[in-house]
């Protein structure tokens, strides 16, 4: 009966007491520990400007992480998020710079092209029954290739759309509160995270994402339109990649078609560090954001400490393994 008592205390409602939340708690502790460590052992880390740098650096990976969190909880994987992001940035460039349309069309173009690519991945997975790993591996190459083809393999600059930089590097809030120089991109990341969290935990779609990841066949036999919701999941992931594409190209004031490869692994790392189960059915958006922060704090802190940049990659690898190990231990106990 101890089992029952234990699990009642840890009753799962995708809520505060779930094992995912525990793991998220662990990730949070790691983040705080890293912040404390770098604050104590370096002079410049804790400076406000540096904190803003960290937030700015987290924005893109955070948003990509959110995109892939949906897919991973649904029991899939999306390897194309990095290159879809690039393709959406190129789309924005084509719409704004080459076609000369106003900013909203660029935003729409980026998000819509992302949704289309994601939707294509989802359709291939749901209808052609191709495993997500393969389907999105294909989409990764397709989107990377398309980005290079459509851009002529050259960066597209946004000089003709001065307002474009308001999407990420500029700080609108500093106009209201002078001195509070937090870039808009950071707010967009948090905004996306909050919306995604609501969508995941409060909406019908969110329930289905969890149900698909937990037991797809049971969901199907319960009358759930499994194929449809799968496609929606990947399309949403793609659309959110569109937001990431806007953020990164706004920050660079250009769509860089050669960029993007490797971002998907950072995004998946953030998701995993944040306690989302790669086998599906379990996970949180907040965890992913914390995971993304852990990665950028590491990069930033180690750089300030003068540690060779590449060590950060090693440390991230170690953290991924430790995070998943802690997750397994926690679940075994529960």
């Amino acid at each position: 009966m101890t089992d029952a008592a234990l699990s009642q205390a840890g009753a799962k409602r995708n809520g505060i007491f779930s094992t995912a939340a525990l793991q998220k708690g662990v990730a949070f502790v790691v983040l705080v520990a890293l912040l404390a460590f770098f604050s104590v052992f370096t002079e410049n880390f804790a400076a406000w400007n540096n904190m803003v740098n960290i937030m700015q650096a987290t924005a893109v990976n955070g948003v990509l992480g959110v995109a892939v969190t949906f897919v991973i909880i649904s029991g899939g994987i999306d390897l194309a998020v990095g290159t879809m992001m690039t393709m959406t940035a190129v789309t924005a460039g084509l719409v704004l710079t080459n076609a000369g349309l106003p900013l909203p069309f660029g935003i729409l173009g980026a998000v819509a092209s992302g949704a289309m690519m994601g939707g294509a991945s989802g359709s291939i997975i749901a209808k052609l029954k191709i495993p997500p790993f393969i389907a999105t591996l294909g989409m990764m190459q397709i989107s990377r290739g398309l980005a290079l083809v459509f851009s002529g393999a050259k960066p597209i600059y946004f000089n003709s759309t001065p307002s474009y930089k308001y999407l990420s590097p500029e700080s609108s809030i500093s106009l209201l509160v002078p001195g509070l120089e937090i870039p808009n991109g950071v707010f967009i990341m948090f905004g996306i995270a909050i919306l995604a969290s609501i969508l995941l935990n409060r909406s019908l779609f969110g329930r289905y994402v969890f149900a698909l990841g937990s037991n797809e066949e049971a969901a199907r036999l319960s009358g759930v339109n499994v194929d449809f919701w799968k496609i929606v999941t990947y399309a949403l992931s793609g659309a959110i990649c569109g937001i990431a594409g806007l953020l990164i190209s706004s920050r660079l004031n250009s769509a860089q078609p050669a960029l993007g490869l490797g971002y998907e692994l950072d995004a998946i790392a953030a998701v995993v560090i944040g306690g989302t189960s790669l086998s599906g059915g379990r996970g949180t958006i907040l965890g992913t954001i914390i995971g993304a922060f852990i990665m950028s704090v590491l990069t930033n802190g180690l750089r300030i400490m003068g540690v060779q940049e590449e060590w950060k990659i090693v440390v991230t690898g170690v953290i991924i393994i430790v995070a998943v190990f802690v997750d397994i231990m926690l679940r075994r106990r529960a």
Partner: protein
Amino acid sequence: MGETDAIHASAAAAAAGKVRPLLALSGIEKSFPGVKALRGVEFTLHPGEVHALMGENGAGKSTLMKIITGVYQPDAGEMKVDGQSVSVPDPRAAQALGISIIHQELFLMNHLTAAQNIFIGREPRRGFGFFVDEGKMRADAAALFARMKVDIDPDVEVGTLTVARQQLVEIAKALSFNSRVLIMDEPTSALNETEVEHLFAIIEDLKRQGVGIVYITHKMDEVKRIADRVTIMRDGQYIDTLPAATTDMATIISLMVGRELADSTRAEGRAGEDVVLSVKGLNRGKVIRNVSFALKRGEILGFAGLMGAGRTEVARAIFGADPIDGGEIEIHGRREVIASPREAVRLGLAYLSEDRKHFGLVTGMSVGDNITMASWPRFLKGGFFMDDGRMRAASRDYVERLRVKTPSIFQETKLLSGGNQQKVVIAKWLLRDCDILIFDEPTRGIDIGAKAEIYRLLQGLADQGKAIIVISSELPEVLRLSHRILVMCEGRITGELDGRTATQESIMHLATLRQPIAAE
């Protein structure tokens, strides 16, 4: 210790007239935090004996087996093998003592061959231990199969075998350890009648070879058939050991549940007259052949037949889970084409799979989520958000109505007992307003006490006007529940019986009524 020597020794002891038990446990105690799992358990097993172990789920059978096989350590008590006191610190030690277990769910690697599965981890080697001696491995496997008198090709990929034959591979594996104590946990749960017969023949053979078999089962007739003695456990306590041949079933049942059970009742109440589901000429390849029937309001229609007769296939076809080649389905008098489970559910059909864990429940999700799952779109507020308050109220309502034993609706479903999980699935469909319920093996893996409760629940649902199909391989279950019984054999309906007058014999006659097909 040489295993072969020990076998000779016990055979000699038997010959001398004083049979020393192969395995003897006494005063076994085991506690888990907050639970006394076993109290003063006694158990002896003689060479060449089949000793049935019976008890409801939670009676402590599995815990006892885990102690014998070294998974758990007892808190107190003694275990003797061949009269020698032993300790079994881990499963490997149990294996060395000649104790093997064949689990209900088989642990085989589907993509490896039979021989590879049998010798996994201890493959015969050659070439300085660098290469596997495939030839020897194959020959040894073939020898084991020959000993069991089964014709399984050692090179066959295990995944391509039937469950029954996979089980034989497991038994061969156990024998390859020179096992003298073989524990079988509900070995017939996935076998058809012929396969069961075959298994029993092999068990008889093993008995003659001096192997002692601990036979865990819920099925009374099997105990009668093959067991020499039966030990009954209840609530972690040893109740009694009785000779199987002279003890009647009612006694065993009453010892198991601690009360008398009048279980020979038949379906009560009357089915209504209006047909809610009518199936005409349903066909799907060779598995469903020209199946037609009608289901009435308030009726429980039993589907009997051997495994593989096509009952589950018919259910899945009606439910839109598998494509059909032809046939008409009418629901409430309207012709419908059901292309997917989604449409079936929309039309008020529900299919409760025999495999709850894989098809019925999302076991990692809460009781509440599972109950509401098929109805989520109805719990939207403002067209987008889930109305958690209403969902909780609805789940609590059904937990109460069906008396699901759970600490709360937030409990993870996998922690519930089989009977309560089944109730959760039923609740899911009732909440979805389904009025045609198809139950596939509704009490599989559910203990006797909970079975009676599920039966009452089904009868109650029929009385309320739900139309129910029950597919069951347990004849007493079909007889007890059904107003009408359809019997299937090889994809076709071979007969219809009245639930009040049908007998096990009349069902079995129809279930084996094969039809030679001219064209094939």
